[in-house]
């Protein structure tokens, strides 16, 4: 991949900055190395303090669990954002409709768009769900859609996370850090806030409470416990929403109603925002050895007395084989073309595609259909011959398990790395909240950075970092206009 073809969102480390970055580029370019070092140290101190809490939850290896943070923000204009958020809303509406259809009439199968075996053979498919109708027909109330960019107007969806997308606490802590570090920039630019996220999450969860719930439904966050690596986020969200953080053992089911054990006796629970995987939710319905779950939870769910969020079985919509059908899925349920593009995808289960993939494996990214976290994949151009060959053998062995995509020239944003300011590849995970009343999306999301030079893998487990994501009003004119209005008022 030639360097010239890579789109840098700021306009490069040295060149003329793109309009939306003007203010920020100016600040960072004029700042003395001392000042930069100073702000970096401040950011580090802030995260080290938060890091204490990560260390707490991550225990002894805590120090390694702090994800590197870059102080140069990633910026989107509000016009870009409007288009993205329309696309996100459309896509997540389609995802919800698709999951409902998969567990219902399967019209999309009958229309010959998605093959039935893709659904039925999917390990995330939960037959129980064919007998359960969640409130408002919504399944994935919290979705994380990973976006990448290749040019000024080219955004692609890289994957949909319809189960339990995480990282929203980083989005909020990053903003908190930036507000402390760069008050002068926040003063000048009109940056859309993100700290309303917990309120919007709570409103979303309440909106999908079962009809038998009281007018003030009781919402809880359910965690596997303090030893889970995302425990910090679980407790963070419970805390900010002002709801209880429960473990399985805090809940019990009586007469198909879920209760939590409180100091005042049993209290009914209406909505469970669970951060526990499907198979651990209820030892009576799924894995009998699960100690994280609540016996009888699925019967209460089936009886319509509790909402589980995200619904059970949403994983059927976010594997990489289903992903490849998303343009058709969006069209089928919304009647319109998808606003957000998919990355062109070869499904190795199809013989033509398989031979194309095997012939061009050096130019492609090959992924396991159910892989995540950047594991189980081959980045062709970066792989050795031996790696390619052994991966090709795996693909040939079990083609259904793989898809392949072209390597995209992912956009970069300058980052502070050891050598100084340098372009690094980024992606974006906005969090889409689907409630019975409406879809809510906090402007921006979590920007992840591949901190290793040339790397395309942003996962924190593989050397990724994060940046704060700013959605700001386009251009300086608007900002100065509003300033003069204030002065005249």
């Amino acid at each position, binding site marked *: 991949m030639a360097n010239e073809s890579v789109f840098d969102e700021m306009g490069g480390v040295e060149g003329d900055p793109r309009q939306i970055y003007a203010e920020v580029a100016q600040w960072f370019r004029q700042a003395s190395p001392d000042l930069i070092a100073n702000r970096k140290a401040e950011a580090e101190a802030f995260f080290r303090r938060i890091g*204490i*809490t990560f260390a*707490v*939850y991550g225990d002894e290896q805590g120090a390694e669990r702090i994800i590197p943070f870059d102080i140069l923000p990633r910026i989107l204009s509000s016009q870009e954002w409007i288009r993205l958020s329309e696309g996100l809303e459309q896509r997540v509406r389609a995802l919800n409709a698709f999951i409902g259809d998969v567990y219902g009439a399967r019209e999309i199968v009958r229309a010959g768009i998605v093959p039935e075996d893709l659904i039925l053979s999917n390990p995330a498919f939960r037959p129980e769900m064919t007998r359960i109708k969640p409130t408002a027909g919504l399944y994935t109330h919290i979705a994380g859609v990973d976006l990448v960019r290749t040019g000024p107007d080219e955004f692609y969806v890289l994957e949909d996370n319809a189960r339990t997308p995480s990282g929203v606490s980083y989005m909020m802590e990053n903003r908190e850090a930036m507000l402390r570090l760069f008050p002068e920039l926040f003063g000048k630019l009109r940056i859309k806030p993100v700290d309303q996220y917990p309120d919007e999450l709570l409103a979303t969860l309440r909106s999908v409470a079962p009809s038998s719930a009281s007018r003030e439904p009781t919402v809880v966050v359910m965690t596997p*416990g*303090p030893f889970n690596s995302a425990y910090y986020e679980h*407790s963070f969200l*419970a*805390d900010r929403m002002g709801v*209880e*953080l*429960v*473990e399985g*053992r*805090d809940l019990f089911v009586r007469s198909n109603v879920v209760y*939590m*054990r*409180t*100091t*005042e006796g049993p209290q009914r629970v209406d909505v469970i925002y669970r951060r526990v995987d499907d198979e651990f939710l209820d030892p009576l319905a799924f894995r009998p050895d699960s100690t994280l779950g609540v016996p009888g939870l699925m019967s209460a769910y089936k009886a319509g007395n509790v909402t589980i969020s995200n619904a059970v079985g949403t994983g059927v919509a976010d594997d990489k084989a289903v992903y490849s059908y998303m343009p058709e899925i969006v069209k089928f349920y919304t009647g319109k073309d998808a606003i957000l593009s998919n990355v062109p995808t070869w499904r190795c289960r199809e013989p033509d595609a398989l031979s194309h993939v095997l012939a061009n494996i050096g130019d492609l990214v090959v992924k396991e259909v159910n892989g995540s976290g950047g594991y189980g994949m081959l980045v062709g151009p970066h792989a050795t011959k031996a790696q390619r060959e052994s991966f090709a053998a795996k693909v040939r062995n079990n083609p259904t398990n793989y898809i392949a995509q072209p390597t995209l020239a992912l956009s970069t944003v300058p980052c502070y790395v050891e050598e100084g300011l340098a372009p690094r590849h980024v992606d974006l995970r906005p969090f889409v909240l689907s409630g019975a009343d409406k879809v809510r999306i906090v402007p921006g999301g979590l920007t992840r950075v591949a901190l290793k030079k040339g790397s395309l893998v942003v996962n924190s487990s593989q050397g990724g970092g994060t940046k704060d994501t700013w959605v700001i009003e386009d251009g300086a004119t608007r900002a100065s206009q509003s300033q003069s209005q204030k002065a005249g008022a």
Partner: protein
Amino acid sequence: MLARTADNLYWLSRYVERAESLARILDVALRLATLPSAYAGTSNEWESAIDIAVCRDTFFRHYDVANQANVTQFIIAGPDNPSSIRACIEVARQNARAVRTAMTTEMWEILNDAWNEMQRLRFQSFTSKDLTKFLAFVREVSLRFDGAAYRTMLRTDHYWFQRLGMLLERADNTARLLDVKYHVVLPETEPVGGGLDYFQWSALLRAVSALNSFHLIYRGGIKPWLVADFLILKPEQPRSLISSYETLNRVLDLLAERYGRQGPSQRLARQTYSQLQNLDIDTLFQTGLHEFLEQFIADNNRLGLAINDQYLQ
């Protein structure tokens, strides 16, 4: 609030208080050990420390003699001792970690720092100087934790369960300290009020940071019955049994009011409190201090169980 959260808050406070109490027990023993035997008597202050810390059986499974080296090692970080100072801090922190958001940052940081310090310390190579410093550190952790809870927590049921744990443990520890002191350390042949007596009872008062305040209240010399009066019946003395129960009652009433329901805990606490109110020290000595303390410790345990049944499950 979640019963588990209440349980965590309650127990973490008990363990912090227990760690402090253990440090105080070692302090007394150290002080007594420095006295010439003519003053301190022939009894073994290290064995008495083991008795107060209620770990005689476990201790003698690991050691032959109760001497300074063995006892301090065992009480601070002994193998197989679930109630060592180190274990107390560790369990307190574990509980805190599970309910991180139910307490304030200040409280958490004190516990977490204490735990980190414990990881760092090499107890095996402790000198006497290190030991004194360490015991002061443990007392300080407890004081700071208690102060942080008092100054930073919202006055809701979270706070009340934190207080309940601290108070119940404190009452237990004071009663045990008195009981063992009375029976083990005081030799039966020694005339009451002798020199030996004086040093031992003053060491006891020192152990509960009450030597100066004793003099403020009683003016005269240190007499065993006055020390007992001070630590059992004086509401002014914050470690006294009556003071602990006065507050326990208040806190339990606040809970009952908030939850709109009285229960066995409230009844038991009221009973013990009114019993203490109607006692005078002469009657107490006539019926026997030891019998009284034994009864009290049992009643206090029963209240602990009642609180557990009523709120923590």
